[in-house]
């Protein structure tokens, strides 16, 4: 199976071509440039280098979020369009799982993306018999309650993410020696890992409806629902063909 994997959830962009379990080519770009300008050229370069045609790909795997809303939309739109237009498989993988899979640490692995206002996108994972297993579902949460929940654990907890240094003092104060940290280049998403996770995933049934996992409603919708608490049931279709 030939897999093209792509992740543009945060500042780093990573794309990889993997055949079965062999890495053919991988590119990671970690500069401040829009993913819109960089993603397709990176894919083109990869395919040229590996002598692959778009139609040769069997499965498109994408980091589906959470992360930067605009960022995840670019990879998700690109991946779903590839899969739809070439009639190939599409698999979405948690962007947090991709980063968690970078470490082989025992105990809990807690990937962390900064979501601003001292909130994070996070979840908890661990390795069991060579598989990465999700233990606490991905969520958008304030850091303090997350740390309280983790403090009751006895296992070591490895925090991983390029944003981890922002929270390191706070985490250490709550968890002490129980906490370990992985950041910097070791915490960048690697599309080869995404491809590997995606090879094990289930292809999505309805590619058209495939969308990012934002893990947050928009502020406008949150406010509107507060004013219209019963309106989420039985409303007219929000989008319709005209």
């Amino acid at each position, binding site marked *: 199976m030939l897999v093209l994997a792509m992740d543009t959830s945060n500042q780093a962009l990573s794309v990889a071509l993997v055949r079965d379990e062999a890495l053919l080519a991988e590119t990671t770009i970690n500069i401040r440039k*829009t993913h*819109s*300008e960089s*993603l*397709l*050229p990176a*894919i*083109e370069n990869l395919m040229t280098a590996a002598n692959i045609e*778009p*139609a040769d790909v069997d499965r498109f795997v994408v980091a589906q979020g959470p992360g930067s*809303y*605009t960022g995840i*939309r*670019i990879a*998700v*739109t*690109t991946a*779903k*369009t*590839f899969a*739809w*237009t*070439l009639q190939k498989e599409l698999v979405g993988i948690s962007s947090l799982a991709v980063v968690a899979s970078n470490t082989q640490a025992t105990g809990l692995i807690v990937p962390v993306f900064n979501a601003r206002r001292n909130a994070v996108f996070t979840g908890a994972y661990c390795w069991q018999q060579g598989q990465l297993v999700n233990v606490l579902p991905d969520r958008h949460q304030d850091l303090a309650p997350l740390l309280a929940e983790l403090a009751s654990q006895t296992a070591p907890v490895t925090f991983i993410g390029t944003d981890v240094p922002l929270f390191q003092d706070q985490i250490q104060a709550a968890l002490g020696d129980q906490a370990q940290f992985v950041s910097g280049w070791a915490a960048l998403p690697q599309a080869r890992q995404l491809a590997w996770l995606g090879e094990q995933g289930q292809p999505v049934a309805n*590619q*058209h*409806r495939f*969308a*990012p996992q*934002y893990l947050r409603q*928009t*502020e*406008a*919708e949150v406010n*509107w629902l507060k004013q*219209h608490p019963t309106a989420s049931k039985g*409303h*007219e*279709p*929000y*989008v*319709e*063909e*005209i």
Partner: protein
Amino acid sequence: MAKRELILAFESSCDETSVAVIEDGAKILSNIIASQINSQKRFGGVVPEVASRHHVEQVTLCAEEAMTEAGVTYADLSAVAVTYGPGLVGALLIGVAAAKTVAFAHHLPLIPVNHMAGHIYAARFVKPLVYPLLALLVSGGHTEIVYLKAAGEFEIIGDTRDDAAGEAFDKVGRVLNLTYPAGKKIDDLSKQGQDTFNFPRAMLHEPNYDFSFSGLKSAFINTVHNAEQRGETLSKVDLAASFQASVIDVIVQKTMRAAKAYPVQQLVVAGGVAANSGLRAAFQQAVAAETPDMDVIFPPLRLCSDNGAMIGAAAHVLWAKGAHADGRLNADPGLSFDYASDFQA
């Protein structure tokens, strides 16, 4: 027999996701439009993040329906076109990403299209265009008079200095408790009322082709609020008629002045506000009285709001002039035509 040129065109600059298949820039084989109005009217206007989220869920669906309805395969297509600006950046990026991917996956040329050029070329579905021509673009984001010396050559000769005309309609609509978008509702109310409030006609007598609608908007709001404070209720239909008359007066008179000053035989009135029945009637009357030899073209109502068909029509013209892009194409939310060299705003 020469192969027909078929362009698959994507549009996602605001709150409509649309994909069309256009033959030779003039024939619509399909034009699928998914509107978010039911969603955005909850907020009284377009919320950009909400718009972007809807586009992701619509874009391949619209593209598939466009291909199916047109009865074409990728092997039949000549090129892929996409709106890359102006518009909401997050919304534009969805169409741009999808169009780039389809073009790359099937080795097709990619044509970047200015959304405003699309509005003008919606007129091509009515009849062939004759240059030089003048176009008035009136929408929620723009009020521009554009001079086309030749096909695909655009120069802005008049522009709004503050609000766009469509924006003024929506803001006034909110004061009248009309749901978004308010343009059609104000147009309907106007037909039952009279121009009794004598709202200002901004910049009508200035020697340029520019517009201003923020003063009109303020005058309208002040009139309504002052009446409320006095406990009076003003006639909603007369308010609507008076507001619409002011907008139409200024737009029609200044556009007609430009139409007489430039060597044009055709006037295209395009953009969402071009669907306004009062504006259409006023232009037809003015042209008949002042420039009976000039041809005024209004695109059909369905092609006045945002749609992929108009992008495919513009792409046909721009491609012939050498426009092309590659995988690096990005959204350009502030994209604009050039201003005429003697333009002063």
